């Protein structure tokens, strides 16, 4: 059990009295705090301080401008949709990887992490080539009247790509740890396979699935590199929120860029808290917090 707990964020350390035998506490903690403050906390604080230079009505005007609001709708809408698609297909893929043996399984298992490792710009141009009118996939969608590249649908495809490993890798260890006895008990009590899945497996997997969904969503909202090539970036139609920040920066509108960044940061922090809560719930419901 002890190494299986690695997949959950941080197992609770054993309670020990405050007796320090080991050296280096002040040095390492001091260095950690200094480095963290200089590189992350102080620069991040700059966003809020810069935004504070705006009056509330100025701030409101920037972050509720029609073009910016259109970008929220696209970014949040497509991120939610992509995370939902990943939750369904990621669960199926994790299920197939845990329960079935088939040729090439090890290779597929390793390649699930590709979106983590592949630079986003590479993913971006590759997806654009695939879904362009004459691309491998685009040529089949074109006669059906479906256009993906340079349309909002392109944003969805890119976000599905980058979000998939989050769901698979969060759900997979929970499925691996399931005891066969649970389903055997369900079957011997007369449950159909579908019922056993719905009433026995799903409740155990659900917190992890929701965590994977939230992780995929959080990543998708901030994603930039893989999206901008395929999105087309038409104002009011296919501009994502991170692109709005870039656009403002290119016009030397630093306060405008920072105001939008503030909105995104607040959302990210909320999501981070929610994900922490979800992970605690996962740990509790699967007994992995011991």
């Amino acid at each position, binding site marked *: 059990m002890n190494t299986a*707990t690695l*997949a959950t964020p941080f197992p609770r350390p054993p309670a020990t009295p405050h007796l320090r035998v080991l050296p280096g506490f002040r040095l390492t903690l001091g260095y950690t705090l200094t480095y963290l403050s200089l590189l992350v906390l102080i620069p991040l604080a700059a966003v809020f301080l810069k935004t504070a230079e705006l009056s509330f009505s100025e701030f409101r005007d920037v972050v509720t401008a029609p073009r910016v609001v259109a970008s929220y709708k696209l970014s949040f809408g497509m991120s939610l949709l992509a995370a939902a698609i990943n939750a369904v297909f990621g669960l199926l893929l994790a299920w197939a990887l845990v329960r079935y043996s088939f040729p090439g399984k090890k290779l597929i298992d*390793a390649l699930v992490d590709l979106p983590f490792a592949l630079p*986003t710009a590479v993913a971006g141009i590759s997806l654009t*080539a695939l879904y362009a009118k004459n691309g491998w996939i685009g040529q089949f969608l074109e006669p059906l009247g479906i256009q993906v590249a340079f349309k909002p649908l392109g944003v969805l495809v890119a976000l599905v790509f980058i979000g998939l490993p989050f769901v698979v890798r969060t759900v997979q260890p929970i499925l691996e740890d399931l005891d066969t006895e649970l389903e055997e008990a369900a079957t011997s009590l007369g449950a159909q396979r579908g019922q056993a899945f719905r009433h026995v497996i799903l409740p155990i997997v659900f917190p992890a699935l929701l965590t994977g969904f939230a992780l995929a969503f959080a990543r998708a909202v901030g994603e930039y590199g893989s999206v901008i090539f395929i999105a087309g970036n038409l104002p009011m139609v296919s501009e994502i929120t991170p692109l709005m920040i870039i656009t403002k920066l290119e016009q030397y509108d630093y306060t405008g860029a920072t105001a939008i960044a503030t909105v995104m940061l607040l959302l990210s922090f909320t999501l981070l808290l929610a994900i922490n809560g979800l992970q605690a719930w996962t740990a509790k419901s699967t007994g992995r917090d011991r």
Partner: protein
Amino acid sequence: MSGASTLRLGAAQAIGQTRFEARAATRETPLVKWLILGTALTFFAVFLLMPLIAVFVEALRKGWETYLSALIDPDALSALRLTLLAAAIALPLNLVFGVCAAWAIAKFEFRGKHFLITLIDLPFSVSPVIAGLIYVLVFGAQGWLGPWLAEQDVKIIFAVPGIVLATVFVTFPFVARELIPLMQAQGKEEEEAAVVLGASGLQTFWHVTLPNVKWGLLYGVILTNARAMGEFGAVSVVSGHIRGETNTLPLHVEILYNEYQFAAAFAVASLLALLALVTLGIKTWIEHRAAHAHHDLHEGQS
């Protein structure tokens, strides 16, 4: 944010597959099984495999000559040098930080520990564009230190130091994230024994802690490296896109692509895709080694 990217050392994998397929209660009917398998694998092929293959096919579309000339182009080479430089600086910085943070968090009790872990995770949940923006706000011409830096004739934004800073930010938590759970699971009895027997702190870390966490550390390092070399959004904001000077490989891909030099763009992209494949290969190898080490350890104990 990185919950999904952490190393999996589960020994359950090896026995898992047969465990479920061997029993009637945990087996689906063949029809359901093939439906699930077919859907999952089709999804995998369309969304993950095809983008990967397309990179190499597009790169070689105009033949090997075009491919090679795109790679030995002076701008590509200078982009490669800058990418390697940024990774070479970011990696040791975040390695030292990760080890320090993991030591303080895993081996000692203090108030606010969970909050500190959340703060270390912050860079994962921040959009790469914002990661670039924050350094523009601090070091840019209109930023806090901008006027002072201009007086000293030091350029950070639209120059190499800005690229390094952005790279450090986006790869900030990787090593710490791998080490903290591993070192917490390990406990501190072994280290305490070493210290009581007279070892110094560094000796204890080197001979007792490090052998226990080496696989996680190595994985954190290759993840940091992959992300450092591949970062696009954050670097794009602070780079200024000066050819031959502040262009990294991913930015070079973008420039070539926007100039409609598709074959050249994909040729450079294929280098980065190879890097990704090597990273995944090393990851799989580490998981294999670590699972075996874990297995042997438990055999030895029982």
